[in-house]
């Protein structure tokens, strides 16, 4: 078992308030972990901290990615090492098309020059899997996309960039049943193509977990993990809500 | 406003409101508090600004009710005034100026806002019968960091006046926030000019400054000029302004009419939109009613 992500007693601050408090977790290759918790528990902050957002300062503790300490690395350096974050609220990039951004990204992340034709093939192939019309390739990334479309494009990026660890932040929020199915299909496809790919799904409802079954489920509250278990834990949260599990620990 | 206690000095040089807030003539103020006066007014200014008045809000003072500028100016001598509002650090104040005529008209208001302070200003300038060119200046100096200023201004301009309205939002430190909305309804033969400046000094990071101006022209022979200016010397800021001039949106009129409103009713409803933003900030029913009534009167005249 190869250690993909090891977080040790991590404490992170944003604008002088502590947002992640003494959080530890071990993730090994090929595993699917779900991080659940009520709103405000710090789930997205954890995702941002793992990806290296400049506003999030690591006060103490460590983050290792494949046994390499990444705390000092910039977001692009982390991306080049195989880390990927599907954003909860993807940014609009006016003037930059889906095609151009992804082609540059793939070149940067893979370290290889991609030809125009070669890349077109890859992109359209992945777009077909996600049932995205090819014309979208020439639209400005995320500009005037609906919430559901933005989420689909995050998964499209994941399929193109083929990361070793994908963190999916609330990928299911704002999606109707059909879009959710398409997104789940995309994630399953990625896993099938690369069984060693590791996934962390952040969600506060367990709906998506019916499609992507996690090996481990963690509950976050107030910046730290208060409970861990297997898939059964998710089913229990569905029945009883979070309060039972949070009180048990605190 | 009625609940604010006031006592006045013998010669009406100073008027005490509650919680240490007072209004006084500028010359008298500088004799009482020479150090503070030196900070904001240099010596030459005091002599030339003979008609100046100071509204002083001490540090850490929070006033819940709106202060009515017209009422406090009443206590002073009968000339056109220039008002300086000094808002001490971490103070919080709401002020409004409701003008229906030129009696004791304050033609220029300067705000000096200190650290952590927050100011809300509402200006309502309804038309009046005198035919003049009226210039009104509103200068806001956000001197220290973490202060916040919100201004809402509404003007009605009718044939007999020319109004020149100038505002300045000057950010001199970081982490400050200012927002100014100025809307105007212009009737026949009127002339309205608005010049609004936002200035952000060097080394002022995390400043947010907004300015929005909307001018509705209801009749013919109107001139509306607007000049929103930005001068930005820092980069970690977010600054936006907009100005729009025209008539009531025809599509919206049509939509309301398809919902049963007469053309007149639809017009009035849409015009109310132009000053709703301001009315809703008042907790004074009398003022709200006065503004609404006046605008409706004017509109009925033409529709």
């Amino acid at each position: 078992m190869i250690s993909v992500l090891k977080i040790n007693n991590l404490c992170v601050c944003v604008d002088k308030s502590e947002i992640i408090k003494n959080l530890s977790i071990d993730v090994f290759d090929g595993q699917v972990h779900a991080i659940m918790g009520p709103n405000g528990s710090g789930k997205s902050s954890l995702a941002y901290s793992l990806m290296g957002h400049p506003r999030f300062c690591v006060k103490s503790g460590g983050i290792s990615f494949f046994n390499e300490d990444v705390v000092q690395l910039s977001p692009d350096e982390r991306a080049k090492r195989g880390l990927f974050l599907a954003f909860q609220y993807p940014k609009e990039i006016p003037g930059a098309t889906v095609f151009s951004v992804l082609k540059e990204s793939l070149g940067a992340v893979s370290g290889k020059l991609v030809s125009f034709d070669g890349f077109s093939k890859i992109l359209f192939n992945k777009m077909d899997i996600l049932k995205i019309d090819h014309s979208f390739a020439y639209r400005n990334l995320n500009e005037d996309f609906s919430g559901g479309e933005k989420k689909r494009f995050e998964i499209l990026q994941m399929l193109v960039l083929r990361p070793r660890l994908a963190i999916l932040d609330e990928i299911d929020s704002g999606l109707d049943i059909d879009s959710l199915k398409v997104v789940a299909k995309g994630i399953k496809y990625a896993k099938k193509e690369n069984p060693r790919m590791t996934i962390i799904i952040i969600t506060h409802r367990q709906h998506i977990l019916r499609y992507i079954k996690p090996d481990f489920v963690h509950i976050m509250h107030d910046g730290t993990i208060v409970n861990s278990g297997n898939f059964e834990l998710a089913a229990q949260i569905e029945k009883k809500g979070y309060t039972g599990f949070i009180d048990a620990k605190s | 406003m009625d609940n604010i206690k006031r006592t006045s000095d013998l010669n009406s040089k100073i008027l005490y409101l509650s919680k240490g807030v007072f209004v006084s003539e500028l010359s008298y103020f500088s004799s009482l508090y020479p150090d503070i006066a030196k900070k904001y007014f240099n010596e030459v200014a005091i002599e030339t600004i003979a008609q100046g008045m100071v509204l002083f809000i001490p540090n850490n003072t929070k006033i819940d009710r709106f202060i009515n500028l017209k009422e406090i100016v009443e206590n002073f001598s009968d000339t056109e005034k220039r008002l300086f509002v000094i808002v001490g650090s971490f103070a919080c104040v709401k002020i409004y100026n409701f003008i229906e005529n030129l009696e004791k008209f304050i033609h220029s208001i300067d705000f000096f806002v200190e650290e952590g302070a927050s100011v809300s200003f509402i200006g309502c300038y309804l038309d009046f019968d005198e035919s003049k060119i009226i210039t009104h200046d509103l200068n806001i100096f956000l001197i220290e960091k973490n202060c916040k200023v919100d201004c809402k201004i509404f003007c009605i301009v009718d044939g007999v006046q020319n109004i020149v309205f100038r505002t300045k939002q000057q950010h001199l430190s970081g982490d400050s926030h200012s927002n100014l909305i100025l809307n105007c309804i212009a009737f026949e033969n009127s002339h309205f000019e608005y010049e609004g400046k936002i200035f952000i000094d060097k080394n002022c990071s995390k400043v947010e400054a907004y300015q929005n101006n909307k001018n509705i022209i209801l009749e013919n022979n109107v001139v509306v000029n607007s000049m929103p200016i930005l001068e930005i010397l820092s980069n970690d800021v977010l600054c936006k302004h907009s100005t729009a001039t025209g008539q009531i949106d025809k599509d919206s009129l049509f939509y309301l009419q398809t919902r049963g409103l007469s053309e007149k009713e639809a017009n009035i409803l849409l015009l109310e939109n132009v000053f709703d933003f301001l009315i809703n900030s008042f907790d004074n029913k009398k003022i709200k009613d006065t503004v609404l009534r006046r605008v409706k009167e004017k509109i009925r005249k033409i529709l």
Partner: protein
Amino acid sequence: MQNPDYVFKSDRGLNKKIVCEISAKKNEPGWMTDFRLNALEIFESMPMPNFGPNLSWLNTNDIHFYVKPIEGLKNSWEDVPDKIKKTFEALGVPQAEQKFLAGVGAQYESEMIYKSLQKKWEKEGVVFVDSTEGLKKYPDIFKKYFASVVPPNDNKFAALNSAVWSGGNFVIIPKGVKIDMPLQAYFRIDSSSFGQFERTLIIVEEGGSLEYVEGCSAQVYKQNSLHSAVVEIIALKGSKIRYTTIQNWSDNVCNLVTKRALARENATVEWIDGNFGSKITMKYPSIILKGEKSKGQIISIAVAAKDQHQDTGGKIIHLAPNTSSNFVSKSISKNGGRSSFRGLLKVEAGAVNVNAKMQCDALILDDLSRSDTYPKVQVKEKNVDVGHEASVSKISDEQLFYIQSRGLNEEMARAMIVNGFIDSFVKEIPMEYAVEINRLISASMEGSIG
């Protein structure tokens, strides 16, 4: 093309004698000589503009006001600053072109292209000649329209140009003729690129259509520091003209230009204006919408880097009903540069049912730089929809983070965002320029070009 009979350079400074000499060298008719002398008087009597960058250092006594074009080409390659040479390398400009742009090459391959195009156009009745030749060969039409849109008393530098103008192009697109490829001003070796006081007059007759491109994105090294051109466009009924300028003069140049177009009924005028170079630019391309249903569009970008002050913008004046206009300006200030936007949107009484929008966005990349916006919206008519919006900000941290999380390093991410920012301009210019502009921006983000 002009055949210079001998090399001539006027003495330094400006006076009646020099103006007369210029007129004599060109064998101009009396009315033009009088026009020049009158303009000289106006120039001397007018004060410097009371707005914009500081021009007090400009000393007209120190300038050669007339240099025969070939003379201007006699620089030696060794004299061209390294900085300029590096730019050419970075942008992939071919060797021969490099020399031409640096004012060194006397011949340029495009001369061949130019000759064959000229034959094709002559057949259609298109006129594309040097301004002096235009005056000589088409005196009536020239006199009819010359200075009709920009009179000498318009501003001090229009007066200067009116007194000493030389070079520039005279273009007539006849009725119904549509030119399907952009007319590049730099096909003509001895004109715009090296002129200081070009005067261009373009007449697009009824139903005609023209796309005219001037300048180039590679930095052009000019010996002369004052560039004061005038461009007048008359767009007759139903015609269409798009005038694109990409200016990247070297950083010793003071670029003060007056550009104005008059649009008649149903005509469409578009100014696509890119300002990348020069130390000081003052340029406000204008459109007068005189005819009903005419349309105007201005897309302008300005990049102000170290020691640069770009004072740019435009004016759109609605004189007739049912006219519409759209004005988009984007500016970038970095390394201490200053970018000022000056825009005028005017609707005169009687111009009913006008729709006009003006938008100005500015990006300040660091704390040393400055951005100003001075728009004026003047409305004298109620039945209109006129609006203006502006914003000033820096590159958003969130956007940077998002792109970096996709593997692009900070510099590349910034370049992507900045290129995206000016996309509305780049979309409108011919492809070759677009590619060069994008490369220019990316290179300047890396700091290798200022």
